[in-house]
């Protein structure tokens, strides 16, 4: 059976930590990091990467277009 697996890549230095992606994600993948980027923002990261389905909801709502989305169909063992 094929299962969809996704992953996101966040441009950490451009992320402003607004948190809109956190609530847009249907799979509760994203959280804001405890660490900050060069501008002092708690940037978005995949706290729960295994749950990502590559739906791109996070990227679509991002005001600063800092999220890239990738998706594969993985075979389940």
């Amino acid at each position: 059976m094929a299962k969809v697996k996704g992953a996101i890549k966040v441009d950490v230095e451009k992320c402003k930590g607004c948190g809109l992606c956190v609530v847009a994600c249907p799979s509760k993948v994203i959280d804001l990091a405890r660490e900050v980027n060069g501008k002092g923002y708690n940037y978005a990261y995949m706290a729960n990467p295994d749950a990502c389905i590559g739906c791109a909801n996070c990227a679509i709502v991002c005001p600063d277009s800092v999220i890239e989305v990738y998706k594969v169909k993985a075979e389940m063992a």
Partner: protein
Amino acid sequence: MSDIKDIIKDENLVYKKTKVLTDNVMHYCPGCSHGVVHKLVAEVIEEMGIQEKTIGISPVGCSVLAYNYLDIDWQEAAHGRAPALATAVNRLHPEKYVFTYQGDGDLASIGTAEIMHACNRGENIVVIFINNAIYGMTGGQMAPTTLEGMKTATSPYGRDIKLNGHPLIITELIAQLPGTSYVTRQAVHTPAAVRKCKKAIRKAFENIGQKKGTSFVEVVSTCNSGWKLSPVKSNEWMVENMFPVYKPGDLKDE
């Protein structure tokens, strides 16, 4: 179970920033709706293949620097005068896709005359109207669009209708004008709303190609700095308080 490194490969890419957006970091506050709408306009321009044919008119307001973020030709108008400048640009270059991008202070206050007459003349342009019910750039003063009872820097006890008049629901007035062919009110607070708003912007730009007159897309937006709420709370506040007055949906589609 595949490893993240195996997923993040060029061949698996499903979404990335459009090339019509420049690599400049936007000056907007974290979570500001302006960034989302910029992206949608840029994506529509890319998908329609009209990057070389589009001329934007930027306003005065937080989005005054929009020309730094969309890699197209631009003109910068005096406060409220974007529709007048768009009229000139469109008449000199009728084959181009001309749009204005304006806040509610710009469009519904100082620029009320210009927008009304451009829409009434049916100029063949798109108007993107960002309604965040406040003057964002200058520090959150009351706008004509500010809701009854809404606190701003210049209405610290809330907007008082007796003193300040009613919120100006200008899009309903615009829809009455025979020069407009498509008038819609959208928002960008959820992934579904963003997708819908993009379709509306696309339709508006396609209308230019069909010489349909003025297409007007209001985006009910947040100004979380002016509203003094977090970006997420601002979206919730908008749904609860803005939507009952500024109702999302199409007002006119001819």
